[in-house]
Each structure stands twice: as C-alpha cells, then as structure tokens.
C-alpha cells in the first residue's frame, strides 16, 4: 500500500516512501463533522500545504498529526505503526504554533533549549545546537533576550528555532505567518522554503492564504468541509482546478453555470463559446470557470455596432487601478465578470468579452476529491 500511494503521488526525484500516512480519518466535534474519511500520504522531505477556508478541517488534521487530537475513526501510520494513541511528547514531530506560544518565563536561549533539556542532553551540546538553530533563523546573538522584547517576526523565528532544534522528522506549521505584515510574510515564505530544503525535514504547513501555498509547497492539498478537494503540485492545482470550489479558492475566478451543447461547444448567457473540453453529455449543465486575467475586452465604439456584434457584450460598472493591472467589473445579463488587464475603462462603457477556447475551464457539477497525478 505504501508503495502504491507513493507511486500514485508521483514526485520521483525525492524519497518515494510515504513517511506518514493518514488512513480513513474522520473526526467530529459536537455532531459537526470536521474531517470526513480523509486519506493522505506525506513523503519524506516534502513541503506539503493544507489549504482551505477556516473551518475546513485543516487545523484539526494538523493537530491529529501532532497528537493533540485523536480521530474518531481511522489510523495514522508511521511506517507500519499506528501512532494514534501516542501522546505528543513521545512523537518525533514538532509544531510551530499560530501565535508562537513561546514560554514567557524563559529567555530566547531557554525557550529553544527547552526540548533538549527535557531530553537531558549534555550542556555544551545544547549550547552548540541552540547557537546553530539561532543562526538558521537569522537571530545570531539573541540568546539572552527576553521573548517579550522581541517583535512578532522575531518571536516567530524563535518559535521555528525551538522546533527545528529538536531535529524532528516532521515539522508542523499552523498558519505561522498569519499575524505578520505583508512584507515580512513574503520574506518569511522564502526563508521557510530555503530552511526546509537545507534541513531536509518534512514540512506540513496549514494556511488559508493561497499565495503562500503556491509559493512554498511541493504539494498543495485543497480542503473544504472536511474533504480533500484536490491534491497536486501548485501549478497543477492552479491551472487545472478540479471543481468550482478549488478554482474559486485558488486565485480569483469567474464562475458561471453553462450548458455543454456538444463536444467543444459551450453555451453561456445565450452565446456560443468554443472550448476544448469533450466527454460531457449533451446539454449537461456544468460549472464554467474563467480566470480574470484570461478575459479580453474591447471597447464598442458606437451605439450601432452594439447591435451588430456577435460577441458577448457587457457594461462596465467599475474599474479600479490595482498597481500592476486594472480590475474591471462588467455586468452581463445580471452576472458579474471580474477582469484583470492593463486597459482603463470608464463605468458605463459597453465592451466585447472574448475568451480563448483553452482558457475556458469546464467542470462537472459537484465533482470532488480526486487526486491529481501530475
């Protein structure tokens, strides 16, 4: 089984063997199903991100890995051993908590040395290891500082150092960057990725920020309502979302109901669009996903040409400058389009809307939980 799932997940260049495997995990709190029959393999050295909106079950999954929650049903397999009943302090897994959770009564050195002291490691060795960990998170010379004197970003680094100094097999990170400002967050994303590659530790990262997930991960696991919606490399999840939820959650999307008239022909708002999808039933109702950056707009110059055009027509309701691009909102028959391009339109203008066939993503309704194998 281990072999099979590793093959299934691809990723040939790294260690093929699954390090930890969740097998049929379900969990409810007060009758509310948080995780619904989840199975997932985590490979050695992998940077795996659990991505989803709040309440999707991603944090619960992380807590089950850490040993802070027990699943109602299912196994957590480490090799051949089910570790569900092993308490957190006996697992070779460490966690970076969302709000750092540093020990306020200890200074930076003592915080980082906490785990090593518990293991009764030699004093000089501890000193060496703490120094190295501080260097790895760019906090040289911070040993004697009190944790309350540190900024948010520095506290976060101490929390990371405190975890990695124990050389865990897996590092769990629970939205570790969510309380940092944008600039620092982006910096830390690169640092975390570099750190993961240097250390060769498996990272399991929880976030609701799709950009974070796409930037750092080897594998993105998109979750919603306690179910894995899609699993794959960042590019694959972004370019080939498997259903409307994933498309909407990963990046901005225009999502509409369309009708597949026949292979490669889609009816949307009464207009026929050419697309590349086949294999649907005739007149099947489908989810149509179009990325804002894939829509082309052209101005309609005069009232007359408004009636002559064969293309889909919309009325500009709003146009906002966003720095790199303009974000234009267009109304067509009561449906809103969000379009990103470099043209500036005036509200009230009429525009033609065009989309290339391969940029129209068509998805079966209510399709879910399929593992991508790119």
């Amino acid at each position, binding site marked *: 089984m281990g072999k099979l799932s590793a093959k299934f997940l691809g990723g040939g260049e790294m260690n093929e063997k699954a390090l930890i495997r969740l097998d049929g995990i379900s969990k409810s709190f007060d009758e509310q199903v948080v995780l619904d029959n989840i199975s997932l393999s985590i490979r050695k050295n992998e940077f795996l991100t659990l991505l989803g909106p709040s309440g999707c079950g991603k944090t619960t999954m992380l807590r089950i890995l*850490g*040993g802070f929650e027990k699943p109602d049903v299912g196994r957590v397999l480490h090799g051949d051993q089910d570790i569900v009943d092993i308490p957190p*302090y006996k697992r070779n897994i*460490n*966690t970076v*908590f969302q709000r750092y959770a540093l020990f306020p*009564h200890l*200074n930076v050195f003592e915080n980082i040395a*906490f785990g090593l002291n*518990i293991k009764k490691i030699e004093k000089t060795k501890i000193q060496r290891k703490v120094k190295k960990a501080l260097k790895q998170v760019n906090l040289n010379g911070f040993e004697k500082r009190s944790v309350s004197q540190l900024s948010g970003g520095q506290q976060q680094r101490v929390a990371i150092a405190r975890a990695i100094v124990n050389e865990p097999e897996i590092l769990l990170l629970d939205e570790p960057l969510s309380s940092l400002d944008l600039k620092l967050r982006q910096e830390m994303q690169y640092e975390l990725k570099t750190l993961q590659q240097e250390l060769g530790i498996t990272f399991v990262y929880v976030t609701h920020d799709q950009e974070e997930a796409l930037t750092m991960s080897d594998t993105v696991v998109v979750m919603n309502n306690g179910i894995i919606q899609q699993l794959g490399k960042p590019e694959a999840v972004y370019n080939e979302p498997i259903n409307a939820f994933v498309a909407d959650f990963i990046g901005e999307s225009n999502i509409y109901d369309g009708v597949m008239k026949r292979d490669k022909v889609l009816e949307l708002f009464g207009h026929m669009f050419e697309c590349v999808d086949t294999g649907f039933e005739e007149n099947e109702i489908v989810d149509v996903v179009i990325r804002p950056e894939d829509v082309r707009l052209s101005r309609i110059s005069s009232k007359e040409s408004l009636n002559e055009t064969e293309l889909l027509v919309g009325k500009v309701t709003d146009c906002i400058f966003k720095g790199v691009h303009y974000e234009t909102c267009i109304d067509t028959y009561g449906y809103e389009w969000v379009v990103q391009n470099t043209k500036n339109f005036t509200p009230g203008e009429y525009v033609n809307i065009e989309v290339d066939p391969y940029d129209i993503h068509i998805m079966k309704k209510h399709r879910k939980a399929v593992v991508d194998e790119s």
Partner: protein
Amino acid sequence: MNRRWLAYPYVVWMIAFILVPLFMIFYYGVTKDDGGQIVFTAEFIKKTFEPIYFNAMAKSFLYAGFATLICLVLAYPLALILAGKAGKSSAMLFIFILPMWMNFLLRTYAWLTLLETNNGVVNTLLRLLHLPSINILGTPNAIILGMVYNFLPFMVLPIYNTLVKIDPYILEAAHDLGADSFQRLIRVVFPLSLPGVMSGITMVFMPAVTSFVIPNLLGSGKVNLIGNLIEQQFLMTYNWGFGSAMSLILMIIILLAMGLMKRFDKGNLEGGAGRW
C-alpha cells in the same frame, strides 16, 4: 488637568482614613502622658522587644507561616483541578468560595462545637467508631487548623486565576517539545503561576499573622499571639501607647518580609530560571 477635582474625594479619604490613623498610631507609640505633659518616649518600642512580647510575635509568625504553607500545599492541587475543568469549574469554584461569604466569627465558633472535648461532633463520631478522641482545642494545632480553614479560599483564588490565564497553546507547546505532564507542571505551569502563588501567600499570611479571634476562640485563651496582646492593650489594660507600638513594629516587620519576598520572587524569575 481640569478634571483634577475628581481625585479630591479620594485624597480626603486617604487623609482621613489612612494617613491620620497611621500618624495617630505612630504618635501613641512614641509619646506618653508624663504628669499632664506629653513627652516623647522609646519606652513602648523597647518593651515590644521584651521576651514575653517578642516571643508572642515570633510565635505569630511561626503559626501564620505554617498555616500559609499548609494552605499552599492544599490549594495548589485544588486550583490545578479547578483550572483543568474548563466550563464546569465555575460551579465548583463557587462552592469553594461560598463559605467566604458567611460570617467569619460564626465559622470559627462552629469549629469550637466541632472540636469540643466531650460532646464535640468530631469526638462523638470518633467514639462511635471506637477510635481515640482528639483534644486539640486550646493548642497551636487548633489555631493553625482555624487559620487554614478560614484563609484557604484566599490562596485558591489567586492561584486559580493565574492558572486559567495560561495560554493553552503554551501548554501544548510544552507537550510538543517532549515534556510529559509532570515535567510540564514543574517547568512551565508552576513558574507561570508564581505571581498567583505570591499574592496567595500574602493574602493568607497577612490576616493570619494579625488574627486574634482565632487564637482567642480555638486557643481557648491559652495561646497568646501578637494580635491578642495588642487587643488586650487596647481593650483591657487601656495602654494605647504600648498597643500602638506593638502594631507599629508588627507592621514594619511585615513590610520588610513582603519586600524581601518580592525581591526573592524577581530574582527567581530572572536568574533562577536557568536551572529549570
């Protein structure tokens, strides 16, 4: 600045009920009426340090210290249990602090009936079970028992308050880093609850060391603590000067003790933490 007058009532209060009484105690303690003339004297202060009085003071500190220690040993596990029961704890906590709202004298009198040598509830029960009776009324044991019983809630509450305020993620972090429940208690929970322990000690020790009702009733008047001696000076021998002098010395010693403890507390947090 124009709202300064809002503070005036408090200033008046402080002067009338804190500064003036303190000054009066000081005044009575260092003056005496020498044939119609008020003169300064160190007589009362010196007398306080005579063995009979100083021993009473030392005994008060000893008993109060002992009672405080027992309170701490009893209260800490209780506070831990209460703090661990999230949600259910408020009802349990309520039960523990409920006696605090009953009259202090009444509760102490109740112990008198409970502990009575012949017909007391405790000894009647013991007799029924054919066990030897206990006669602790009139002994230091009864006084310490009374102190522990009356002041225990004052130890439980501040410790409980600091325990429930500890971030649950910090507790999880300790587990995560390999500490089992006992190691976590020693290395994380206890150090973080020290402020509560300190204020608990203060809140139990202070009333215990100056108590005179408990030794009066449960000590059957046989054990004189400093509180009793001061009371006697004011209510029986009418030597206000000596009573004031003893109060003054007691206050100074308590202040010194508290100052020392605070110092020790700080030193422990900064320097001693490395030992953990």
